[in-house]
């Protein structure tokens, strides 16, 4: 298979380490020069980092960057690539591909994929291992489409108190797309998992320089074969009707509706039926949440070692105030259309409410078009602020399972599952 990645470029020998230290010298020199412009920009812009308090900003604070097939996005890290979607792209129910956030774990990601040799393999504990080309997937199976939100488990991590290490996302590690592809169940059926197989593992074209058997070598995720979400999973070759950008997982990625994005394997190449539960780093150690209501715990409980954890799974209900974004004054007495989005991994958004009096009373917002239970749902609320000064609006959503966003914060050491009620300050000025 001709997959050009920088994977395993760094073998852990003394020689390569020395070579790298030499390369770092080059980096160092660059680092001394580059910030001239960056510093100039940062002087007039946001601070380079936030904390130790919670970040007060809607998005993460990194600079704008230009990456292949992408509009200008906000940089978290450049190798592995992590990019956040700016707030303004959430004014619509569907997030454009070129603005869709990016989160890789390891540095070895594809710059090129040759579809002549690339195959999707269904293998492992199956009766008939089988491989499909992209053309096979498009031609041999019925095309299925679903609108579904892809949200990083650590979206909004920069809100946690105390702060936790990890990708310091604002709210933009999410996006909604219409995904089109083949039902995962059909592919599994073609290979025939052997009875008693507990899990199915997914692996894409992502690897790193770490030693074999470590999380720094391969990124792999698994789901139970008995999990009903498998019936809704799609192996998607189209995103909003177009091929996936390389950074979002060309040629195909797994879509797990309602689940956090950690399972949505990009550049999916191996679907592997396992004969025992997956104990690789990314299942056993990473992406785990406390087995408590909302995944909440405390630093003390973690220190005491008393927290039982489970793999992160469905996304709790959330809503966001998108526009206006608070950067312009609003004249008193003028009706303003406040717009936002909401979603839930638990059966669709049923209601969004807005409060303008510090969460004492709530008024219903008008919901936009329903694109399905796993999609963003847009909402709108007409607000007429009467008195000049600082006003705060808050929005909360409820879902089909009867969950309503609470105002209590969440804390766990991974920085996952944040879904506290969002607020936006607005400045209202005198109109005469």
């Amino acid at each position, binding site marked *: 298979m001709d997959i050009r990645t920088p994977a395993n470029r760094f073998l*852990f020998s003394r020689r390569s*380490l020395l070579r790298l230290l030499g390369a770092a010298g080059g980096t160092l020199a660059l680092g001394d020069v580059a910030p001239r412009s960056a510093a100039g920009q940062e002087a007039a812009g946001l601070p380079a980092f936030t904390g130790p308090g919670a970040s007060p900003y809607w998005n993460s604070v990194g600079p704008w960057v230009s990456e292949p097939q992408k509009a*200008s996005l906000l940089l978290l890290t450049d190798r592995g690539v992590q990019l956040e979607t700016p707030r303004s792209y959430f004014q619509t129910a569907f997030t454009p591909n070129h603005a869709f956030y990016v989160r890789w774990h390891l540095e070895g990601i594809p710059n090129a994929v040759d579809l002549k040799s690339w195959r999707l393999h269904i293998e492992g504990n199956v009766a008939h291992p089988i491989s499909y080309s992209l053309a096979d997937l498009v031609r041999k199976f019925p095309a299925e489409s679903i609108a579904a939100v892809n949200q990083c488990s650590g979206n909004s991590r920069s809100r946690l108190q105390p702060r936790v290490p990890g990708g310091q996302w604002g709210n933009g590690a999410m996006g909604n797309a219409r995904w089109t592809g083949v039902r995962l169940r059909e592919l599994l059926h073609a290979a025939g998992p052997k009875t008693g197989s507990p899990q199915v593992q997914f692996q894409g074209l992502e690897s790193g320089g770490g030693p074999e058997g470590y*999380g720094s070598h391969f990124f792999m995720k698994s789901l139970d074969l008995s999990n009903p979400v498998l019936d809704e999973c799609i192996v998607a070759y189209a995103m909003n009707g177009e091929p996936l950008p390389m*950074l979002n997982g060309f040629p195909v990625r797994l879509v797990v509706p309602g689940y956090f994005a950690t399972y949505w394997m990009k550049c999916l190449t191996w679907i592997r039926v396992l004969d025992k539960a997956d104990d690789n780093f990314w299942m056993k150690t990473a992406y785990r949440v406390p087995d408590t209501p909302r995944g909440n715990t405390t630093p003390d409980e973690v220190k005491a070692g008393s927290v039982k954890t489970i793999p992160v799974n469905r996304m709790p209900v959330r809503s966001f105030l998108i526009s206006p974004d608070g950067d312009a004054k609003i004249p008193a007495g003028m009706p303003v259309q406040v717009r936002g989005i909401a979603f839930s991994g638990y059966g669709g958004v049923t209601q969004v409410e807005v409060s303008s009096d510090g969460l004492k009373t709530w008024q219903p917002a008008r919901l936009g078009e329903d694109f399905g239970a796993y999609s963003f749902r847009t909402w709108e609320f007409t607000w007429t602020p009467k008195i000049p000064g600082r006003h705060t609006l808050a929005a909360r959503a409820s879902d089909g399972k009867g969950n309503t966003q609470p105002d209590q914060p969440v804390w766990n050491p991974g920085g996952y599952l944040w879904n506290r009620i969002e607020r936006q300050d607005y400045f209202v000025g005198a109109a005469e």
Partner: protein
Amino acid sequence: MRSLKRYVTLLLGGSIMLGLAAGLLLAQVDQGNYEPGTLGQLQQAPPAVLSEDSVYQVPAYPLYPPQMAEGEGRAETEGFCSLCHSTRYITMQPPLPAATWEAEVTKMRKAFGAPIPDAPAALIIKYLQAHYTPDTRKP
């Protein structure tokens, strides 16, 4: 001569009137403010050069090395950490307690198998604690 004088008077009067008008306008709005932009700091990508074969490719992903704090252990930190990831993973973090930095370096060595010997590992921890905690991080 007379006509010239009249012309000057008209001109002066006109200027004063214009000035008054501008003054009135300035009381209502602020106009014509410009300042240097950020031209060239984010360049457009050139058009892709494509062929009709089966290879689908994108250009190299850009690197943006951050400015790391000056101090003992910087070279080791940049060298060893860059084995697997860019040092933006460090500069992106909020100020973290000294114990958290030690735990992070230990995680990289034990959980991720990073080949950092004891001596440079201790230096790296000391460097991160000297520049990236709530007490030590500079804006």
